[in-house]
C-alpha cells in the first residue's frame, strides 16, 4: 500500500488536488464549472479519509528529504473541516460575478490543506507562502476599495514568511533536520518560527491586518478568508509548540483584544473579523496550557469555529449583497424580510457564544475545563470572563444591530438559493455537533474523556451567557454604534511612518531641502572628504621622500634612547 501510495502521491496529495481544481476552474464556464466547484472539495474530503495514517516515502531535494504527506488524526480533522469549508464557500459563491474568485480561493484552500499534511518545515513554508499569495488575490479581486488593504496584507505576510524562513534556516543549522515536530521556544531560530506562526494567527500586536483586509473582500471572499490562514496557524502552533507557556498569555491578550475592538466597531464584517482574533486566542491559550484536554479542546474549537464563523460571515455577506451596506448604523430591522438569513445568523451567533446545544459549547468548554484541570486560576477566571464577553460582542451584538435594533426601512429579500443552502448546511453542522458531539470527539487527537452535558456545565454556561445578555440590554445606550473606527498598531505604518518621512522630506514651509537631496549632499560631502585625503593629490596618498623617512626614524630612535636612560 505504502509503495503504491508513494508512486501515486504527487497526484493524490489532497492540497495539490484542490490547487489543480482551482487552476482548471479558471477556464471552465457553465454547468461543468458548478460541478467541479462542488465536486472537487468532496473528492479532497474523500482523499483525506482514504489515505492511510503515517507518512509517505519522502522526496529527495537538495540533500533534504521532503515529506509532503504525513497523515494523522490532527491532519484529518483539519483536512476535513477545510474541505467542508471549500465546499460550503464554493456553494455560497457559486453565483459570484467575479469568476476568478472561487478558483483562486480553491488554490488558497489547497495550500492550507498542503500545510495541514506537510511533514517537514520546507513543505510547510512553500505552502505557507502560496497561501499568502492566493489569499491576497482573493482580497484584491474585490476591486479598487480592497487594493490598499491587500497591499498592507501581503507586506505583513511576506514579513511573516521572512521570519519563518529565517527560523527554519536556523533550525536546520542547529539540528540538521527539516522534520516538523514539537519544538520549544529555546533558541533564536525557534523564536523566529514561533513569531512567523503567530503573525498568521493574528496575534497582537501584529493583528490589524486581519480586520483591515478581510472585510474588504467581496461578500463571498471573506467567507473563504476567515477559515484558512488563522486556523492553519493554529494547526502549526499545535504541532510545533504544544504546552509552550508563553502562548497562554499571548492567547489571552488576543481574546480580550478581539472583544474590546469588536465592542467599539461599527462595520458588521469588521466586528466578525475582530471576533476571529478573539476565538483564535482561545485556541492559542489551549495550546499553551498543553494538557491532553486543552489540546483536544483547541483542535475541536478550531473545527467548530471555522464552521460557525463562516456561517456568520455568510449571513453578513448576504446582508451586504442584498443591501449594499455593512455599517451597523445603517442597518437594522432586517428580520422582517430576511428570516432565513436572520435565523442562520442567530444560530452562528449562539454557536460562537458556546450556547448549550450548539457546536461551540461542546468544544470551548474543553479549553476552559483544561485550565481548571491544570489549576491555572488566573487563566480560568480570565477565560470565563472572556466567554461572557464573546456573547456580548458577537453573540448578541451582531444579530441585534443587523437584524433587529431599529427599523432601517430596508426591506431586502433573502439571498438566492445557493447562498441559502450553504447557510442551511453550516447551521445544520453547528446544531448537529452541538446535540451529538460524538463524531467530532472521535476525530480528536487524544481519547476524549469529557461529558459536556452535565447539569453543572449547562446551568453555569446558561447563567454566564444570559446574565451577559442582561448586561448587554441594560447597557445598550453605551453600546450604541457611532460612525467611527478604532486606531490599532497599524497606525504606526499607515500614519506614523509616512508622517515622519514627510517631515524629513520637507513638508512645504517646514524644511526647504527634501530628504533625498539632503542625503545625496551628505554622501557627496563624505566622498569629497575621502578624495581629498586619499585621492591622487591627497596627503595620505603622497609618496614620502627617503630623507623624511630617515629623519623620522632618527627621531624615534632618539626618543627610545632618552626614555631608556630615564
Amino acid at each position: 500500500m505504502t509503495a503504491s501510495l508513494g508512486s501515486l502521491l504527487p497526484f493524490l496529495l489532497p492540497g495539490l488536488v484542490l490547487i489543480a481544481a482551482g487552476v482548471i476552474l479558471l477556464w471552465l464556464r457553465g454547468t461543468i464549472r458548478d460541478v467541479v466547484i462542488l465536486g472537487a472539495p468532496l473528492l479532497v474530503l474523500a482523499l483525506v479519509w482514504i489515505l492511510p495514517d503515517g507518512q509517505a516515502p519522502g522526496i529527495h531535494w537538495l540533500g533534504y528529504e521532503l515529506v509532503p504527506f504525513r497523515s494523522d488524526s490532527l491532519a484529518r480533522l483539519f483536512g476535513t473541516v477545510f474541505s467542508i469549508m471549500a465546499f460550503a464557500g464554493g456553494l455560497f459563491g457559486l453565483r459570484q460575478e467575479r469568476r476568478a474568485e472561487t478558483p483562486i480561493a480553491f488554490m488558497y484552500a489547497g495550500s492550507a490543506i498542503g500545510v495541514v499534511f506537510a511533514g517537514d518545515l520546507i513543505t510547510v513554508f512553500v505552502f505557507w507562502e502560496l497561501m499568502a499569495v492566493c489569499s491576497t488575490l482573493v482580497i484584491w479581486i474585490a476591486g479598487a476599495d480592497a487594493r490598499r488593504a491587500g497591499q498592507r496584507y501581503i507586506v505583513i505576510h511576506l514579513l511573516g514568511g521572512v521570519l519563518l524562513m529565517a527560523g527554519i534556516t536556523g533550525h536546520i543549522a542547529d539540528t540538521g533536520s527539516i522534520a516538523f515536530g514539537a519544538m520549544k521556544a529555546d533558541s533564536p531560530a525557534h523564536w523566529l518560527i514561533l513569531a512567523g506562526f503567530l503573525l498568521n494567527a493574528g496575534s497582537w500586536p501584529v493583528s490589524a491586518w486581519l480586520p483591515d483586509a478581510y472585510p474588504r473582500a467581496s461578500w463571498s471572499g471573506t467567507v473563504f478568508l476567515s477559515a484558512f490562514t488563522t486556523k492553519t496557524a493554529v494547526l502549526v502552533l499545535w504541532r510545533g509548540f504544544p504546552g509552550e507557556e508563553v502562548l497562554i498569555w499571548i492567547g489571552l491578550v488576543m481574546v480580550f483584544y478581539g472583544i474590546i475592538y469588536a465592542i467599539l466597531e461599527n462595520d458588521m464584517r469588521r466586528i466578525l473579523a475582530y471576533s476571529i482574533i478573539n476565538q483564535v486566542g482561545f485556541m492559542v491559550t489551549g495550546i499553551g496550557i498543553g494538557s491532553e484536554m486543552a489540546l483536544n479542546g483547541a483542535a475541536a474549537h478550531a473545527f467548530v469555529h471555522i464552521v460557525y464563523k463562516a456561517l456568520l460571515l455568510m449571513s453578513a455577506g448576504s446582508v451586504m449583497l442584498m443591501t449594499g451596506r455593512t455599517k451597523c448604523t445603517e442597518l437594522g430591522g432586517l428580520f422582517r424580510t430576511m428570516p432565513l438569513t436572520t435565523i442562520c445568523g442567530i444560530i452562528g451567533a449562539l454557536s460562537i457564544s458556546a450556547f448549550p446545544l450548539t457546536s461551540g459549547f461542546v468544544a470551548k468548554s474543553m479549553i476552559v475545563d483544561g485550565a481548571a484541570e491544570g489549576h491555572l486560576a488566573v487563566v480560568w477566571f480570565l477565560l470565563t470572563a472572556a466567554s461572557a464577553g464573546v456573547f456580548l460582542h458577537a453573540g448578541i451584538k451582531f444579530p441585534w444591530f443587523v437584524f433587529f435594533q431599529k427599523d432601517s426601512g430596508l426591506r431586502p429579500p433573502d439571498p438566492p438559493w445557493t447562498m441559502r443552502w450553504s447557510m442551511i448546511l453550516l447551521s445544520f453542522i453547528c446544531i448537529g455537533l452541538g446535540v451529538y458531539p460524538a463524531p467530532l470527539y472521535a476525530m480528536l487527537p487524544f481519547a476524549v474523556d469529557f461529558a459536556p452535558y452535565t447539569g453543572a456545565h449547562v446551568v453555569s454556561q446558561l447563567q454566564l451567557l444570559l446574565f451577559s445578555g442582561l448586561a448587554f440590554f441594560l447597557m445598550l445606550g453605551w453600546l450604541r454604534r457611532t460612525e467611527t473606527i478604532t486606531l490599532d498598531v497599524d497606525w504606526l505604518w499607515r500614519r506614523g511612518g509616512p508622517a515622519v518621512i514627510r517631515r524629513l522630506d520637507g513638508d512645504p514651509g517646514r524644511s526647504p531641502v527634501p530628504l533625498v537631496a539632503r542625503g545625496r549632499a551628505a554622501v557627496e560631502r563624505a566622498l569629497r572628504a575621502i578624495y581629498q585625503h586619499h585621492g591622487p593629490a591627497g596627503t595620505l596618498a603622497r609618496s614620502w621622500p627617503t630623507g623624511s623617512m630617515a629623519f623620522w626614524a632618527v627621531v624615534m630612535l632618539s626618543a627610545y634612547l632618552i626614555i631608556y636612560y630615564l
Partner: protein
Amino acid sequence: MTQPGKDDNWLVRPSTIRLLWVVFIVILALTVVADFLIDHHATFGIDGTIGFYAWYGFVSCVVLVVGAKGLGVLLKRKDTYYDG
C-alpha cells in the same frame, strides 16, 4: 412584506417587548434557582457558590464595556480617518 415606514410587526410592539422582558427575567431567575438543585464541583472554591456564574458574567461584561468605552475615548476616530 411589511409596508416600509409603517412598523406593525408583532416583534417590535411595546407589549411584545414587555412580555419578552418578563420571560427573560423569569428565565434568569430560574437559572440561579437551578444552582440550588445541582452539585457544582468547584475547583477554585468561589466557582461553586450559588449564582457565581450569574454575577461573574454580568460584572465581566460591565467591566469590558466600560473598559472599551475608556479605550474608545483615546483611539476612536471618524471612519474616514484613513481615506485621502
